[in-house]
């Protein structure tokens, strides 16, 4: 922190501004120390840790079912997928195969989570670029998914619906009907998104060719998720290492080669359609079966190391659990996608304008609690 303060003194002719930790465009407590030359960004230094809660340390003193509610608080827009990641790791360690019903429900909810996360991305990205109306349209449609969550899981954003071995409780009888209603509704309204923002000439001018990342750079920096796929890096965990019911559905992995801000945006727009396709394949075929496996009251993982990665809305979330045979894990590591995606922000935005920096950091879709953990 001291370094940043020192360089504010204008002896080296750099104009240093602090974006954040309280700034309208950083979506959280991310602090970017930006060195400028006129409007041109010379250097971006991210300072993080404002919402570091030590989740990995906390996990070492609690049991496996209790870890799940902490993962909700990492990437709160992919809360359900985070839960699923921990559950899959624990189930893998215990050698439990959950019923098909659980797998289907988890997949549907994961895809709904992905849609609502991308909707929020669309909303806030539009707002970052100055199109304030997008924010309300995005949240209006997201509200419908949150209602589905609330009815089935009990929570709107922080769902805590998964448990090792299955789910917390069975789905609500209205779940299928509501989900289908939503998809019918959203297939119509998603065209509005394109009309309002995607096709807009100002938007395209602002985003096309900005913050280019090549495929090699994306792999080298470990950028996954929509950010990596926009650069042509095929990194969809759902496709390459399928978990839950992803091996039973057909879907396309959205890939673009340009790797600029516009295509990072476009990947997410296309993924929403793809997610709706996945849900439509599953929603009518949820098999009968138990919604949870019979679990011991105290879950103890056999000694060893377990790694499982899932595809959240922002990229690959890896859960790495080292167990020493106790009811508490010995070490838990979350490989969070946002943390990795933040690192190349400097090279992406060097030489662009301040407005581009906002667009680039918006297109990375960073969730700060997931970076800090």
């Amino acid at each position, binding site marked *: 922190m001291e370094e940043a303060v020192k360089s504010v003194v204008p002896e080296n002719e750099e104009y240093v501004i602090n974006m954040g930790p309280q*700034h309208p465009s950083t979506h959280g407590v991310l602090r970017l120390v930006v060195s400028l030359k006129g409007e041109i960004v010379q250097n971006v230094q991210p300072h993080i840790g404002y919402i570091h809660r030590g989740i990995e340390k906390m996990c070492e003193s609690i049991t496996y079912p209790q870890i799940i509610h902490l993962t909700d608080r990492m990437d709160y827009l992919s809360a359900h997928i985070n839960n699923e990641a921990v559950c899959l790791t624990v189930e893998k360690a215990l050698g439990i195969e959950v019923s098909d019903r659980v797998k289907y429900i988890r997949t549907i909810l994961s895809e709904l989570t992905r849609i609502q996360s991308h909707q929020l991305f669309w909303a806030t990205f*539009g707002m970052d670029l*100055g199109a304030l*109306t997008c*924010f*309300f349209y995005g949240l209006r449609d997201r509200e419908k998914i949150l209602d589905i969550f609330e009815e089935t899981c009990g929570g709107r954003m922080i769902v805590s619906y998964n448990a090792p071995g299955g789910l917390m409780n069975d789905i609500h009888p209205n779940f299928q009907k509501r989900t289908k209603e939503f998809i019918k509704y959203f297939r119509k309204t998603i065209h509005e998104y394109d009309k309002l923002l995607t096709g807009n000439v*100002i938007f395209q001018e602002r985003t096309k060719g900005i913050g280019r990342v090549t495929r090699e750079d994306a792999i080298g920096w470990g950028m996954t998720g929509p950010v990596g796929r926009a650069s042509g890096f095929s990194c969809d965990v759902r496709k390459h290492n399928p978990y839950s019911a992803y091996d039973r559905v057909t879907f396309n992995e959205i890939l673009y080669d340009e790797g600029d801000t516009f295509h990072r945006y476009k990947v997410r727009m296309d993924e929403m359609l793809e997610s709706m396709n996945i849900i439509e394949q599953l929603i009518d075929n949820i098999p009968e079966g138990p919604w949870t496996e019979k679990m011991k009251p105290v879950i103890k993982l056999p000694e060893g190391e377990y790694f499982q990665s899932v595809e959240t809305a922002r990229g690959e979330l890896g859960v790495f659990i080292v167990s020493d045979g106790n009811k508490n894990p010995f070490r838990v590591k979350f490989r969070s996608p946002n943390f990795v995606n933040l690192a190349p922000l400097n090279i992406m935005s060097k030489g662009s*304008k301040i407005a581009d920096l*906002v667009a680039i950091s918006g297109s990375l879709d960073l969730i700060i609690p997931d970076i800090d953990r």
Partner: protein
Amino acid sequence: MEFSIYDFSSFTAWIDSSLRASMSPGWATAVEWIIIGVAILLFYAVVGLFLVYAERKVCALMQNRLGPNRVGPGGIFQTIADLIKLLFVELVPIKNADKILFNLAPYIVIIASFMAIGAIPFAKGLHAIDLDIGIFYLMAISSMGVIGVLLAGWASNNKYSLIGAMRSGAQIVSYELSVGLALVTMVVLAGTMQLSEMIEAQRWGWFIFKGHVPAVTAFVIYIIAGTAETNRGPFDLAEAESELTAGFHTEYSGIKFAFFFLAEYMNMFIIASIAATIFLGGWMPFHIYGLDGLNKVMDFIPPFFWYIGKTFGVVFLMMWLKWTFPRLRIDQLLNLEWKYLLPLNIFNLLLMAFLVLKGWHW
């Protein structure tokens, strides 16, 4: 004495003559100044407050919201409540700010917009001063506000503010050109710079219809450049919220902020007024030559309402633009001006001159 809402000239003449009858000419002029000043001040306040309310309501409806709805019926008194709050809000003293310029800036901004209102004809005879270079005066005055913006950005000793102010300077200097040329195009058509004469010339057809394609082009350019000149979205780079927090007025609070806020809305109103006056006939009702029945009906609506209606039509258009589009980047903003609007404008001006020369505009 007979007054009518269709022609205010007899009313103003009556005030003038009765004042002059009761006191010396010097005093009478002074009293007239005060009356006009107070009237314009009141109008300014009422329109400013209403515009803030209208903007909030318009954007709310576009965004599937209700907008202000708690203070008064439909939230109509919301802005008055906000104003009262802003009056009582603490004026935060800024360390290391240039005190004099910091305090001066809001006044420059508001006085610039205030002066422009004086030259706008609201209705037949309702006109504070009918300069024979009315358009020239309006252009000159309305670009004064940028001095205040630059001062505000520089004096508040804030990096965001400075960037915002510099952006605003570059923006207004460039777009002033387009506004000017678009208006010059219409001056070529009208053959005069006096606003009252321009309106009179639109008795049998507004200029936007009379001038054919060049007039429509000039109108579009004027709206774009005018929006840019008022620092409103999609050209609100000077206060680009997501980039510069609040741009040049980041450090301002309380009534000084309210001045900037009000001035922004009044600038929008002035730009819309000029557009209404020059392109849409000002207070002149809609006439079609030969259709006397229609013309009579149109004449029945008082000119003041015509003026207000047209102005708010243009204001609504500007709000619509703001709440739909993303913001431009600074280099794109300048590109738009110098690569697109300016060449188009010059071409358009030549076209208009050709049109007038040939006499095709009647």
